[in-house]
């Protein structure tokens, strides 16, 4: 069937610079460039271009520029080009529209309407270059009160297991299968070096990554892939995945094409079959059932590590979070509207869930009101772009954040949203053995560690500016935030005053 889709991008190839070296041909996994031997020329197939910029970055003579196709439809407020093209795609494919990465729609990004405070005159700011700053964060259940032995001044209270991280940024769940082993290893090594944790997602922990297990969060999701006693034993903590911000309420299907021999072995399913993660966990239909799985995992690991429960941020998150904490979750992870994914139905990704900013605020408020905020740490996820977003999230009430997309961008991702095709030209969202080699774990780990180092320095600068020398003092301290261009209702949910007040 001839496609009615126009090319989305234009490839500008500057003839005076092009030396027909064919780097672009080899780099493009979507066949947007081809070499014509007869004319000794490179030809463009723009309908195949996804705008990932792999070719222009690797072109040795800067002979390539990729830009949006300026082709315009007759202006129509209702029939935006995206809707027209979605209909064309569906009329040709006849299926559920599939996409990758996070929600790209213009919902309000509240981070851009929240401003941080700084000390002036009445309290001194702190210079982090000369004074110690504390970013260390402890994840896990905190006691209601602590008791000391008066004689020895040692702690009498039995503390629940805690996980210490040096920087309040962890790597989100990304499974082997959705991404390849080189990417997981890059994140694992970066986490180990930077003193944080990486989350293996629900695809199991590959044997070669067991040496990084002390920095691994392992997931128990509805598919239960790769879940076995050793997997639970070696992890730093366990995360029960109920939902994901990019696709709240639905399961996941890793297409059989991505289930290579090695992925199959890690997931313990036959190669080439779809790896289906059902929408619900079939042993969890209520908070009581959730408690049952939480305690099954605690029993299985003899109460040696925290159990986290991850949900997508949805309308009733605050009430659900309260139930999760009461069910025994030591950590709760909230994944917001802009949370990313390797594959999700477009309608779900773009229309289901609530922004993470509002979810953090409402969950933190609810748990405080109920006097149970200390019983669980909160990890927020879903579209964190820079260290200022992290600082604002912590001021709103999060203990730490998960980053997925930001870490992948450090590895080369340009957010072209082609993850479900499995053809990622940057070698990230693919298990193709040749493409996977494009991510070198030595270089990958270095790039991600550099990112975290930069963010840590910036977080310390911002804290110092506020006159705070420990991240702990900022947690849930919403007086350090002010809102701009927000309605009274929004300010109310965020628990933040308008700038100037």
């Amino acid at each position: 069937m001839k496609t009615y889709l126009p090319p989305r991008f234009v490839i500008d190839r500057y003839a005076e610079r092009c030396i027909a070296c064919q780097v672009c041909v080899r780099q493009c996994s979507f066949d947007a460039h081809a070499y014509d031997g007869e004319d000794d020329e490179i030809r463009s197939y723009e309908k195949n271009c996804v705008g990932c910029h792999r070719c222009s970055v690797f072109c040795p003579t800067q002979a390539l520029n990729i830009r949006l196709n300026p082709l315009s439809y007759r202006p129509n407020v209702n029939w935006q080009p995206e809707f027209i093209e979605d209909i064309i795609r569906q009329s040709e494919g006849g299926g559920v529209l599939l996409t990758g990465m996070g929600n790209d729609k213009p919902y309000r990004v509240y981070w851009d309407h929240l401003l941080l405070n700084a000390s002036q005159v009445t309290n001194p700011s702190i210079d982090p270059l000369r004074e110690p700053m504390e970013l260390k964060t402890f994840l896990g259940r905190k006691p209601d009160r602590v008791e000391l032995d008066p004689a020895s001044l040692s702690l009498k209270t039995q503390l629940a297991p805690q996980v210490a991280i040096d920087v309040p940024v962890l790597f989100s769940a990304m499974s082997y299968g959705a991404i390849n082993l080189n990417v997981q290893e890059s994140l694992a090594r970066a986490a180990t070096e930077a003193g944080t944790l990486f989350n293996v997602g629900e695809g199991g922990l590959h044997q070669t990554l067991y040496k990084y297990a002390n920095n691994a969060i392992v997931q128990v999701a509805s598919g239960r892939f790769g879940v076995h006693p050793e997997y639970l034993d070696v992890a730093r903590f366990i995360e029960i995945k109920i939902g994901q911000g990019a696709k709240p309420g639905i399961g996941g299907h890793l297409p059989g094409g991505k289930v290579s021999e090695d992925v199959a072995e890690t997931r313990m399913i036959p190669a080439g079959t779809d790896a289906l993660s059902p929408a619900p966990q079939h042993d969890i239909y209520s908070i009581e059932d959730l408690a049952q799985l939480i305690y099954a995992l605690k029993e299985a690991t003899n109460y040696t590590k925290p159990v986290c429960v991850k949900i997508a941020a949805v309308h009733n998150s605050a009430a659900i979070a309260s139930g999760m904490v009461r069910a025994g979750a030591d950590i709760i992870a909230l994944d917001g509207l802009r949370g990313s994914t390797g594959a999700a139905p477009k309608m779900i990704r773009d229309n289901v869930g609530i922004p993470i900013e509002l979810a953090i605020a409402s969950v933190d408020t609810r748990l405080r009101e109920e006097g149970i905020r200390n019983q669980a740490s909160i990890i927020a996820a879903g579209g964190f772009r820079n260290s200022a977003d992290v600082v604002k999230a912590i001021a709103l009430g999060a203990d730490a954040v998960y980053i997925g997309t930001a870490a992948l961008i450090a590895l080369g991702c340009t957010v072209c949203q082609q993850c479900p095709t499995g053809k990622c030209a940057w070698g990230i969202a693919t298990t193709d053995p040749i493409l996977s080699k494009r991510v070198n774990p030595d270089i990958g780990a270095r790039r991600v560690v550099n990112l975290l180092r930069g963010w840590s320095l910036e977080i310390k600068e911002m804290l110092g500016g506020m006159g705070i020398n420990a991240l702990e003092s900022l947690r849930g301290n919403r007086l350090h935030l002010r809102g701009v261009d927000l309605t009274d209702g929004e300010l109310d949910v965020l628990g933040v005053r308008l700038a100037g007040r």
Partner: protein
Amino acid sequence: MTTNISSNGGSTVRIDVNGTHYRELNGLIREAVADGAQRIDLHDVHGQRYIATNLRTEAEIHIHGTPGNDLGAFLDGSRLIVHGNAQDGCGNTMNEGEIIVHGHAGDITGLSARGGRIFVREDVGYRAAIHMKEYEEKRPALVIGGTAQDFLGEYMAGGIVVALGLTLNGENCHKASFVGTGMHGGVIYLRGHINEHQLGKDVGVSKLTRKDRTILRDLVTQFAAHFGYDAEEILASRFIKLVPLHLRPYGRLYTC
């Protein structure tokens, strides 16, 4: 509430469970295993959950009374023998080992099992064997003496389910509907009748091969030995084999 532990000084330990909390009970079991117990008898079990979860031992644990949900969750090599009924989630995500239930088992029996064997003398509840998996020689099996409720073998990605229908009477027809919905791996053998409308749309009926007969004979022989049946008599009946129609049931669902 008293917990009585007695040992014959050798490898057998008896624990009178009564009202002991599961956390304490599992602690006692682990202790007994660490001390080298080969057989542990739990008496007066009253709904304690997670019994023997993630126990790395080949010890045999006899459970007298009614164990609670998630019996043998993440089981890794032990043999659990229930002298009574098991509740929901029996063998949840088990990896290795054996669970033998001299009675009924509840819903989601064998949920996401990756290995090991479960034998249930009578019936099982809803969604038994849901999302069982297999990888090469690691192939879990659930053998049900009677029949199952709806959604038997839902989402199965591997493994073997056998339902012998010994508790059926009259028409000898299994009652479960939606059998094998979303199934994309593994196999279900049914003794007795089932109507086509009771099957999930992803499931096909096929004939037993010689290899199937070998697998069945092995499992039914073990079943018969556990519960005192005549294996030959059971095997003499007609069996139906249910297999997934596609390895990728949702392969055509999406447009990229």
